[in-house]
């Protein structure tokens, strides 16, 4: 196609209408509402979780499917869709393991009508990030295949125990999919296996994704720009509510202690880590490590599933970090600024309250600005106002 090289030049690719966001809207119904909708979506993120005691799927098995088809070369995300996506994915993987320490992730790419597993399900962020870094140099060719990639993910996920949350996240840039069989059959199977599929579209709403997400109970979003993309991706960091039908069971977990042995120690024998047996790149013999309390197999990193006895090995801090998902901070009440009587200072940042609405903690009645409200709910997970009153009382 002779159009391609032309389009590659930035100045011919069309102007971006960055000023459109700032456009004042007199009719009061259209453009401004889109921002409003976005703002509400921002808050909805934790409002959604705030509904009392919801069971959460804390042990997650997530496959991320990344479209690497021709359309990923599009330059509407800078420098192009693929690079931008992979960059965000790195961030996502880190954040994911930070918030879900006892969960696992795997990455699949699809191009040229095929699906390829980039990394298998594993609980170690390093390996995934390395794989993602490497993938940047890959070429984007052909069409993606939604069917094939979902199928690959399903083959692994269907063997996962029923008490875990099985999820697939598709990052879909193309508007078409090239499938070898009827995808609606596959959707039915996914639904039966209770695998939740969510999609983030990079270009526009595609019907088959709408159906796919609706049937399997996932979410479907289309990005507006890069920052919106990041927000949407971050939505998937929090564990989703578990479906009520998923079975409930006690799981055995091992809490291995880290044994540090020095060379000077006479009893210390260097040994292989079980997780690195098959890889050649890592250094083989080490002294210390985590030893499975059940079978004494050694691992250098946690969390991991013991290769020998199948016990889930975690450390206590991991579990503690997941704790806040179970008891999330209540959503703050939103009130318009005009109705608020009192000093107009945010309790957290001490800045002046200038936005059109303020947020009040239901417990301690302290007020906060939008930014702090987000920060408290996203990062702190506890209200600074309440902490203060706890201490003083």
């Amino acid at each position: 196609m002779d159009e391609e090289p032309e389009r590659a030049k930035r100045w011919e690719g069309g102007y971006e209408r960055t000023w459109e966001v700032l456009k004042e809207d007199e009719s009061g119904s259209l453009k401004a509402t889109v921002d409003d909708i976005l703002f509400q979506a921002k808050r909805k993120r934790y409002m959604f979780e705030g509904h009392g005691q919801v069971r959460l799927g804390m042990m997650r098995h997530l496959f991320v499917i990344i479209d690497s088809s021709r359309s990923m070369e599009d330059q509407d995300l800078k420098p192009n869709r693929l690079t931008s996506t992979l960059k965000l994915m790195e961030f996502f993987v880190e954040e994911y393991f930070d918030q879900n320490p006892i969960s696992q992730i795997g990455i699949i790419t699809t191009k040229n009508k095929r699906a390829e597993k980039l990394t298998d399900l594993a609980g170690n962020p390093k390996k995934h990030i390395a794989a993602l870094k490497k993938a940047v140099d890959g070429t984007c060719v052909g069409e993606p295949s939604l069917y094939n990639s979902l199928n690959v993910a399903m083959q692994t996920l269907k063997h996962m125990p029923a008490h875990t949350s099985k999820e697939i996240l598709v990052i879909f840039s193309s508007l078409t999919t090239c499938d070898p069989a009827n995808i609606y059959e596959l959707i039915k199977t996914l639904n039966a296996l209770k695998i939740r599929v969510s999609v983030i579209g990079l270009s526009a709403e595609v019907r088959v994704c709408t159906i796919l997400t609706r049937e399997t109970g996932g979410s479907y979003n289309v990005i507006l720009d890069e920052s919106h993309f990041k927000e949407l991706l971050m939505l998937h960091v929090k564990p989703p509510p578990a479906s009520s039908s998923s079975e409930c069971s006690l799981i055995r977990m091992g809490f291995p202690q880290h044994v540090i042995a020095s060379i000077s120690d006479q009893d210390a024998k260097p040994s292989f880590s079980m997780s690195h047996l098959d890889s050649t790149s890592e250094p083989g013999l080490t002294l210390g490590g985590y030893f499975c309390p059940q079978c004494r197999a050694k691992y250098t990193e946690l969390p991991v599933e013991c290769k020998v006895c199948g016990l889930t090995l975690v450390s206590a801090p991991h579990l503690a970090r997941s704790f806040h998902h179970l008891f999330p901070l209540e959503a703050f009440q939103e009130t318009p600024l005009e109705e608020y009587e009192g000093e107009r200072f945010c309790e957290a940042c001490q800045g002046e309250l200038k936005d059109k609405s303020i947020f009040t903690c239901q417990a301690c009645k302290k007020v906060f600005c939008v930014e702090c409200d987000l920060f408290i709910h996203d990062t702190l997970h506890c209200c600074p106002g309440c902490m203060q009153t706890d201490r003083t009382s």
Partner: protein
Amino acid sequence: MKLNIEGLLVYFPYDYIYPEQYSYMLELKRTLDAKGHGVLEMPSGTGKTISLLSLIVAYQKAYPLEVTKLVYCSRTVPEIEKVVEELRKLMDYYAKQTGVKNDFLALALSSRKNLCIHPEVSSLRFGKEVDGKCHSLTASYIRAQHHSNPCQPVCQFFEEFDAVGRQVPIPPGIFNLDDLKDFGRRKGWCPYFLARYAILHANIVVYSYHYLLDPKIADLVSKELAKKSVVVFDEAHNIDNVCIDSMSVNITRRTLDRCQTNVETLQNTISRIKETDAAKLREEYMRLVEGLKEANVARETDIYLSNPVLPDEILQEAVPGSIRTAEHFVGFIKRFLEYLKARLRIHHVVQESAPQFLKDIYEKVCIDRKPLRFCAERLRSLLRTLEIADIADFSAITLISHFATLVSTYSKGNLYDYDFHQKTPTIANPVLHFSCMDPSIAIKPVFGRFQSVIITSGTLSPLDIYPRILDFRPVTMASFTMTLARTCLCPLIVGRGNDQVAMTSKFETREDFAVIRNYGNLLLEMSAIVPDGIVAFFTSYIYMENIVASWYEQGILENIQRNKLIFIETQDAAETSMALEKYQEACENGRGAILLSVARGKVSEGIDFVHHFGRAVIMFGVPYVYTQSRILKARLEYLRDQFQIRENDFLTFDAMRHAAQCVGRAIRGKTDYGLMIFADKRYARADKRGKLPRWIQEHLTDGSLNLTIDETVQLSKHFLRQMAQPFRREDQLGLSLLTLEQLQSEDMLQKIAQIAQQA
């Protein structure tokens, strides 16, 4: 919810209402109050049907003496069924709210083919066959023969109905076609005749246009409808063409040949009957001497809807002597036939007006005007007397007789045209087109007879032209816009390619290589960014073929196919429906598809592309009608002389209504969204733009005129992403969707007042 529309209590079966629906009902109420006609334009997908039904039913309940019947005319069977379903919802709501059992009778009527329950007859595939077979089982003399000879087969359903069905009225309720069939099966009555009989006392009748407009059918079905009825023509943007079609006749050599055989059969039957039963023919003769008095009496007392084929003056006269006896009449028809045959032997195109034709026929074969006018009635009477069972065989001669009557009755606004058949330009195969120039002839009795006639559609702009071409005086003309919480339609006018070459389907430049290439690039670029389905419309089949061939040579087609599959509408109906099915499948499973079709074709008129089936519509060129056609030229001339409508105004109006129809296919509701791309620089001109419906024009800003392809791509991308954001009902509430409380607020009522724009 219960609404108060200027003092009228209206039950509305939904909890929410669109502001424009409220406004629409207001206008409708005023029209009914004034007992006049109305022209109302409201975009599709905003609940036109339910607003119409709610208001008119409420009106009927409140003033049972003012409005006795609602006659709702729609175009296709699925549309009829949809209307009945809405009505059912409304009636259920009434029953629930008032606690009184519904005492309304509403029913749908369709052809025998859709209603027949006779096991043999209903298995026939074509409507004509069903009609013919049905007639051969139910005609009065067949049944008389059955009395004497029980072996003669009759339809037991009809017999049963005829025996008891008329005495026992059909119970109140809502009957769609299937309900009628069920009811018929239960009782053992023929649903078709039951429905035809029941429309006389039904409160609401839903049927096709033709039952009112086509004189041949209207006479049978609708002539006894009460004067105090409200008639609604839904999807009426093409009503003038329907009127014209119902009054036009095309005659080929084949028709004449078949007519010839018909005449021979008639002759044989007559001579046979003469030997056996001469009294019968004499009886008929006497009846004809009496004249058509009966019909005349009926018309004077205003019981019948007058048949435009047979104007009042004729009824007062007796059938002229020259065609009273059967043999004379057959001889007369024969002569007429020979004359037509002679005329069709010509090798050049001739165009004549009615008086010219009559003069010529008088000079050549001495046929007077008067007997010609009685031709249709006379033939019907003869067929009845001769007890010919299968009238389907006689369609050719019936056609000729209709032609004779029409030609002699309406000297104004008609035209004959001997034309060569288009498919075989080398072989002389002339066709006689008898075309009616004046749509008001067919619709005049409707306007004259009924108290209120409402013409409504999604695209009726410019409103003032309809009253002019249909020759009536409406009391209300209004256009309603769509109130939207988000701009879900995005009309763009693409005038130039990336190389700045103007894009247009203008005749002089349509073969231009650059134009074709730019059209191709536009489709290619759009196929890469629009999800699921794209529908592209061309101005004609030939133009589409040329362009697609050229795209193939340039390799554009191949590139497009990398993004989406391509389907093409053809003139073959079976092929097209196959293509359409596959197109929808491709949209459904994520492959994505493009449907190339033609404005004025089947796809552009009847098929909706909801949601993902049409995310973008591209209109390549302005769909002007083929202006070199003689019939069109004559019609334009007629319009200019009679109604002072300039040729250009009419042509643009016609082109724009079709363009609006095409692009309107994509938006079928407020949750739907779609791009509307007008790919021709001529759309940007004020005279074209101004003729688009107001609900499209509103969103056509200066920024979206005369764009280049890459600007279009940028705007579309932006639009599609905006639209893909989650959209919930709460976002609509208060803006484009109202609860009862919101509706009653003062400022909302003010806003609503602005929705309707009086023309």
